[in-house]
């Protein structure tokens, strides 16, 4: 099991990837010259603005976030109004949130592989075992199904465990416990026992980690009744969602992304807790609603820059809550723009985008001027080769092309 400290490294390629076809959206090199031109523009703007991609450590990401194409509506007023806040990386934000909650409530504990002495494979729990002891930050043997079940049993008896999957993919081994006990036990016990666990870990497609370490489990877990799923994407919402998940009495699965751990942002000094069920307005706009989450948010924002240069005004929403969907924020946006593009890293089949498409069609069909477009990863096991891997996930040029198609 590879552990990666600096998962972010090589450049995100901004090549035109025009040979990739999605089921709904057809664009290839046989298309109009304007398309090609678009790609060319993207590359050029990419070269100037964020050379080497979004995911460089530190500075670039910070630039990207603060230079977001339009002011973030969700920027908390508190952050600007009061003290300036402090800068940190996303994994540090997660740790800060975790530590604050452990400080606040002695029943909060952590269990997982290498969370204690090693500090976590992505350093989210670094220093905590030294501070709180080996029982409270428990290094478990490699037995996902059992230690997840152990966390659930502990939660039933009053503790509030955070169960870490070293990589989200390993939680497939814990599916039995997550589905049967985590999700259903509150119901089958007639409400007698609650399971306030947080199951968290890094997932998503990284940098050539291979098929099994590049999984997106949100699509597998979404049908389980009784759980909530959230995905963090910035240090600000990572800390806020971590705290909210710990405080929630429901079992929450918190999806982190391997490539986002080193994003840097300035977050408020004072305590804040975000809402688990709400989506985040990243960039208000008028022409099209782009729904996304986790790492794809950054691909979308990069595409948004290009789109703005071309005269489009996309509204970007980070849905954050993968289950349940915040249909209010999403609905209001659709009522305004009448066009929807979903950009996700899940597989095409049965992913979050598929569910979201269904939910939107069901609830807001009358407000749509065009069919919903969903850009997802290819239904392939993530290849090792860098070029192939790049083509399995959605890239900014595809997003630009999709918006142009949608807004014609």
């Amino acid at each position, binding site marked *: 099991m590879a552990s990666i400290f600096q998962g972010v490294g090589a450049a995100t390629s901004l090549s035109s990837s025009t040979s990739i076809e999605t089921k709904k959206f057809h664009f290839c090199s046989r298309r109009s010259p304007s398309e090609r031109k678009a790609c060319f523009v993207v590359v050029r703007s990419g070269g100037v603005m964020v050379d080497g991609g979004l995911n460089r450590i530190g500075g670039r990401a910070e630039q990207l976030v603060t230079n977001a194409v339009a002011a973030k509506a969700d920027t908390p007023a508190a952050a600007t109004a009061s003290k300036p806040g402090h800068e940190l990386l996303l994994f540090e934000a997660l740790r800060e949130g975790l530590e604050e909650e452990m400080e606040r409530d002695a029943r909060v504990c952590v269990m997982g592989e290498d969370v204690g002495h090693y500090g976590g494979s992505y350093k989210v729990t670094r220093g905590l075992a030294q501070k709180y002891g080996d029982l409270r930050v428990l290094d478990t043997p490699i*037995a996902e199904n059992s230690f997840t079940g152990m966390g659930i049993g502990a939660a*039933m008896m009053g503790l509030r465990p955070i169960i870490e999957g070293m990589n989200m993919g390993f939680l497939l081994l814990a599916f039995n416990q997550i589905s049967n006990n985590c999700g259903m036990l509150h119901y089958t*016990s007639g409400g007698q026992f609650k399971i306030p666990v947080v199951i968290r870990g890094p997932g998503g497609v990284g940098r050539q980690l291979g098929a099994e370490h590049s999984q997106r489990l949100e699509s597998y877990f979404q049908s389980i009744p009784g759980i909530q799923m959230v995905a963090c994407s910035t240090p600000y919402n990572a800390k806020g969602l971590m705290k909210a998940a710990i405080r929630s009495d429901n079992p929450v699965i918190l999806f982190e992304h391997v490539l986002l751990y080193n994003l840097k942002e300035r977050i408020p000094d004072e305590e804040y807790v975000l809402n688990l069920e709400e989506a985040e307005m990243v960039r208000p706009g008028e022409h099209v609603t782009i729904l996304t989450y986790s790492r794809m948010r950054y691909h979308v924002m990069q595409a948004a820059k290009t789109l703005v240069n071309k005269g489009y005004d996309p509204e970007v929403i980070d849905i954050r809550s993968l289950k349940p969907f915040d249909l209010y924020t999403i609905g209001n946006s659709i009522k305004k723009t009448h066009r929807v593009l979903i950009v996700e890293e899940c597989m095409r089949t049965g992913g979050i985008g598929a569910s979201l498409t269904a939910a939107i069609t069901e609830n807001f069909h009358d407000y749509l001027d065009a069919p919903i477009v969903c850009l997802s990863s290819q239904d392939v096991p993530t290849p090792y080769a860098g070029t192939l891997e790049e083509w399995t996930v959605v890239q900014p040029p595809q997003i630009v092309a999709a918006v142009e198609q949608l807004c014609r």
Partner: protein
Amino acid sequence: MSFSGAKIIQPLCIRYPDTPVISDQAANRITTSSPFLGSTRTLRRIQSVSAAQRRSASAIVAVADVVKEKKLKSNKNHLLTKEEGLEVYEDMILGRVFEDMCAQMYYRGKMFGFVHLYNGQEAVSSGFIKLLKKEDSVVSTYRDHVHALSKGVPARAVMSELFGKTTGCCRGQGGSMHMFSAEHNVLGGFAFIGEGIPVATGAAFTSKYKREVLKEADCDHVTLAFFGDGTANNGQFFECLNMAALWKLPIVFVVENNLWAIGMSHLRATSDPEIWKKGPAFGMPGVHVDGMDVLKVREVAKKAIGRARRGEGPTLVECETYRFRGHSLADPDELRDPAEKARYAARDPITALKKYLIESKLASEAELKAIEKKIDEVVEDAVEFANESPVPSRSQLLENVFADPKGFGIGPDGRYRCEDPKFTQGTAQV
């Protein structure tokens, strides 16, 4: 693969010794294999009868080191007091009568689905659970009615749950395989085998956590995990043996080896059928005990529970027992040899205890009859109560999915779905 001849092992006579259960001979042996009863097919020749005789009166403790067992002190010649005897007897009768009533009710169409009855195994439940405090926890499998009853869940609540009524212990939402009680610390009731063992491990972990992290110095709560021979081949079993021994958790793993996992004989499924041996492999004592004898079970249980309570760590106890009925009420039970069933029926734990109580003058026939009558009434009352209880209404459908119903999310109108009035009626779209 051929086996070296089938050998029918004669059942051992049950003798209730006046002397303590653990003989010195047995104590000095590091390992003793016990003859495996129950199937006409054996994978290997079992040791000679003399070994069987040596083993007959004792429970074997097999540990990594030799353990000198002290002779048990009893106040009198008896293994338990009159009160204890009657309590255990009543509990076993309750288990038996209740399960028989379940069978009746099932065939009358009052309960449905998979119902797994415990007839014949009462000695294990009563032998262990009657030694627990209210704060101790019990985790079981789908064969959980009697574990819940022994732990103190009222017969009414269990019967109602089986009938699917809203007055059931789980509001009718769990059913036969999901008996839970927060009040009595019954942590389930699990339909998949093995999935309760990690939950039990977690409960034991909490007990240790409360003592060491939350500084509740007197927290010595023990957890019992009950499961069967089939489960002893499952990964979660081994993973939890490891973790429990590693962290010295206050848990006792109780294997109810009734030799059959539906139609799969234990001998056909297991490379080494002696499950108790798996304990020392993980660093905990492994004990084999005659699970048809409630007094022997009780003695072993006292030791194991005592160990856990003192913080000395887990124990694996293999109880050799037998289910008189099929795996579930849907099981035609055609595979098991009638001779085997007859042999075990002769070792009915209730009959054996009754005999012991009367012969040792701890109770009279009349007292025992009175208990039986009382239990009949309790179970009849439970059925009546369940019959008259209401079925769950539609409004109950969406309750209890989430501890915090905000988890259903925000609807298109901006309100949380759980605030929608249709939600409490159970008709909301979630």
